[in-house]
């Protein structure tokens, strides 16, 4: 496999004469993430690690800017043709790592493959097809008006259709997506991105080299080689940076933020994230949770600011809703409502002055300080006489319990794959329906068909201002109803040596655009 890639890269180097780059790419970057990509087939899994790989070795049609806008990449421009159709103009003269040239046929190949992928097909469900107009023009068609068309198009990283078509020597289909077992695409890669993969030893290291024929000659990036080492242990990752073993690390654990800030060679960047951490209150298991007053009492009893300050050490933004700032559904007027007296009063009104006992479960290695947060929430609930029987579990054991709705209150963190508010509601507060898959992670069994209908309506509203108003109303009603207990949006943190200019390439989605990275 190593040989294969090496041979491939070797033949490529011979085939293509070096072209002048925007900047001389000579610097080497050593970096450490908490994990390395599980596969080279970016359609095999939808995860943070795979998206990071996608942005290094492929290019999307368009990508998010740091203020959640869009910037053109392989698509030069786009225009709405009618309610259901968006026409894209493809950049000309873009080369894949294999030397093939990018055309609309490659986009179609990619689109069809995404529709096949177990992880991506849900995101591409609203799309009914793709029309090729000519080599550099194509249209994406949705079955009904879809306001998130561009959001979704950021997931289209065109594949090299010639490279991924046909059969391998032992007769396997090169385009196959395999969740388990090796496929051609999981070990070989040809994208349009700034880096090619030159060596990969799973769990140990991945090496990338700058692609000589990279189309974006205006990119300021001057990194010629990247060595990615997965370092799972937080302490070791931070030590690797402080001792100079690596130049760039992510994520940075909250306990070490100060240590890096105080280091004279360190450069720490933090950002308020978009992953909401919350607790569901299971109405099916606990009669009292059906009463909105009890739910509100709980909402009043939780001190989000305290958790963010004390447990998260300021490494979180206290939340009173799901949508983070910048999302269409973000409702400015909603703020944490910590007030114990009010909470006690509500419990009294609801007839539960003496409280009751519930069970609670949370993971202990999935989110930052997840078990400590759960302990704090349990302690806060004790003040309104709700006795909590808390159990924390490693994530491998937690999720099966979550699927069984095994406790009365369960913790979950959610990041919207579409970078849009509606995704939160669809998975976390929609009336659970096994057939349609709605409310798949709604462990509270909260169900309000009116709110669901409002979200559905917003999902076909292409006037973005109107849509935002609808989604903000949804947040307001969920807040009034205390449908769940929001805690905070987990912050993101990266750290690098001083000479590695990471700020410009970072974003809240946590896929650094390393192609544009500058090292001084």
């Amino acid at each position, binding site marked *: 496999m190593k040989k294969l890639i090496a041979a491939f890269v070797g033949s490529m180097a011979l085939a293509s004469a070096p072209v002048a780059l925007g900047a001389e790419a000579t610097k080497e970057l050593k970096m450490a993430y908490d994990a390395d990509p599980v*596969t080279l087939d970016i359609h095999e899994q939808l995860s943070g690690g795979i998206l990071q790989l996608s942005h290094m070795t492929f290019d999307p049609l368009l990508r998010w800017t740091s203020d959640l806008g869009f910037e053109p990449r392989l698509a030069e421009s786009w225009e709405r043709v009618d309610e259901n159709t968006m026409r894209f103009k493809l950049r000309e003269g873009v080369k894949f790592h294999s030397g093939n040239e990018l055309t609309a046929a490659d986009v179609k190949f990619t689109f069809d493959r995404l529709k096949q992928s*177990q992880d991506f097909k849900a995101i591409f469900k609203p799309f009914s097809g793709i029309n090729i107009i000519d080599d550099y023009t194509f249209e994406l068609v949705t079955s009904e008006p879809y306001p998130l068309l561009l959001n979704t198009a950021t997931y289209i990283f065109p594949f090299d259709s010639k490279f991924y078509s046909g059969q391998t020597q032992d007769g396997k289909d090169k385009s196959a997506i395999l969740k388990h077992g090796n496929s051609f695409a999981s070990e070989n890669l040809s994208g349009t991105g700034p880096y090619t993969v030159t060596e990969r030893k799973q*769990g140990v290291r991945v090496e990338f080299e700058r692609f000589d024929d990279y189309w974006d000659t205006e990119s300021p990036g001057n990194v010629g080689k990247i060595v990615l080492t*997965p370092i799972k242990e937080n302490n*070791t990752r931070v030590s690797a940076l402080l*001792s100079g073993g690596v130049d760039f690390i992510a994520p940075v654990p909250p306990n070490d933020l100060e240590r890096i800030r105080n280091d004279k060679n360190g450069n720490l960047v933090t950002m308020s994230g978009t992953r909401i951490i919350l607790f569901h209150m299971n109405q099916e298991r606990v009669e009292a949770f059906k009463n909105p007053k009890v739910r509100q009492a709980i909402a009043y009893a939780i001190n989000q600011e305290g958790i963010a300050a004390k447990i998260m050490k300021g490494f979180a933004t206290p939340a009173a809703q799901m949508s983070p700032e910048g999302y269409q559904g973000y409702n400015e007027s909603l703020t944490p409502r910590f007030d114990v007296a009010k909470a006690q009063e509500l419990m009294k009104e609801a007839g539960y002055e003496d409280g009751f006992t519930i069970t609670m479960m949370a993971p202990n290695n999935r989110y930052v300080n997840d078990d400590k947060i759960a302990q704090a929430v349990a302690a806060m609930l004790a003040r309104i006489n709700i006795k909590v029987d808390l159990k924390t579990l490693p994530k*491998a054991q937690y*999720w*099966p319990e979550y699927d069984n709705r095994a406790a009365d209150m369960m913790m979950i963190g959610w990041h919207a794959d579409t970078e849009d508010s509606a995704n939160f509601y669809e998975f976390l507060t929609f009336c659970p329906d096994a057939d349609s898959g709605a409310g*798949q992670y709604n462990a509270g069994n909260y169900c309000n068909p009116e709110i669901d209908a409002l979200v559905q309506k917003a999902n076909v509203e292409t006037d973005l201002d109107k849509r935002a108003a609808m989604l903000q109303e949804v947040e307001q009603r969920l807040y009034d109803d205390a449908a769940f207990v929001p805690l905070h949006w987990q912050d993101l943190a990266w750290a690098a040596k001083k000479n590695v200019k990471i700020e410009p390439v970072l974003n809240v989605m946590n896929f650094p655009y390393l192609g544009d990275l500058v090292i001084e």
Partner: protein
Amino acid sequence: MLAFLVQRISQAFLVMFVISVIAFAIQDGLGDPLQEMVGMSVSEEEREAIREELGLNDPMVVQYLRFAGNALQGDLGNSYFYSKPTLEVIAEHLPATLELVIGASLIIVFLSVPIGVYAAIRPQAWLSKFFMGVSTVGISIPVFLTAIVLIQLFSIGVTVNWFPSDTGWGQWLNDFFSTEGGLPSYGRGDELTHLFGTWESGFFTGTGLMHLVLPSVSLASIMLPLFIRLIRAEMMEVLQSDYVRYARAKGLSAGRINFLHALKNTMLPVITVGGVQIGIMVAYTILTETVFQWPGVGLMFLEAITRSDIPLIVAYLMVVGLIFVVTNTLVDLIYGLVNPTVKLTGKKA
């Protein structure tokens, strides 16, 4: 001899059988492997289809029989995460662990024997007391703490300013207690020498050796005090025995008595303990490897657990079980060579 080996091999099979049954019985408690294989937003239907494909929906007994049938043909299944046969994955990771254990063992052997012998011959010397004191401290510090302290001191470096730096002696003391750092704190480095098969060695290059230093030292730190104390105690006992007194009376040189006659008998229990400890050390590498991101089987095993990579977990446990049985057998054989009065079980008297 042959009967002994046959007995041991059948024991090994029994051990592996028991391990595989236990591993299979607890796999439900290890979590759902699907969680690591698919994104959060994948529907329950899709998950069910993958489970069906992997055979995870079959009754436990059916799954076990399928596994056992393949295992008898030397196939322990495919790792979910690596998408490769589990034995291949273990073979790729094992050399790193073995090199770490070898590194630690070398440190232990070359330090514990001279120190232990010295402490036995000169129990009253201040140096002996110093070594015994340090070893008590060493034995009571957990390995990950040792590792973190070592990283801080020798990788990152510490600047001390406890003393007034405007005085000559203060500056000297500050410099004395400060460390430079610079030793690698993670991984095995870029320059590995390919030996054979999956064995890539770090013993033949400068950077490879540098990367070995801290992990080996921290792994050795747990066992070293134990061996020093053991050798000292045994040696002291042997030095009291009649034949040593006789040798002294006969006028043999102290070196000959101590290192030829006494040491040989001292080493008997040390070898027994040592063999068992090497097996335990393979288990201890889990901690050391995690702290140093050392790409060996310990780290691999820990990650397999967090990912619920059940086939890999089962295979690892079986391989470790095998290592235990093999080292114990070897220890018994060596014991027989060093001390001819010992009879191996199964051997006619």
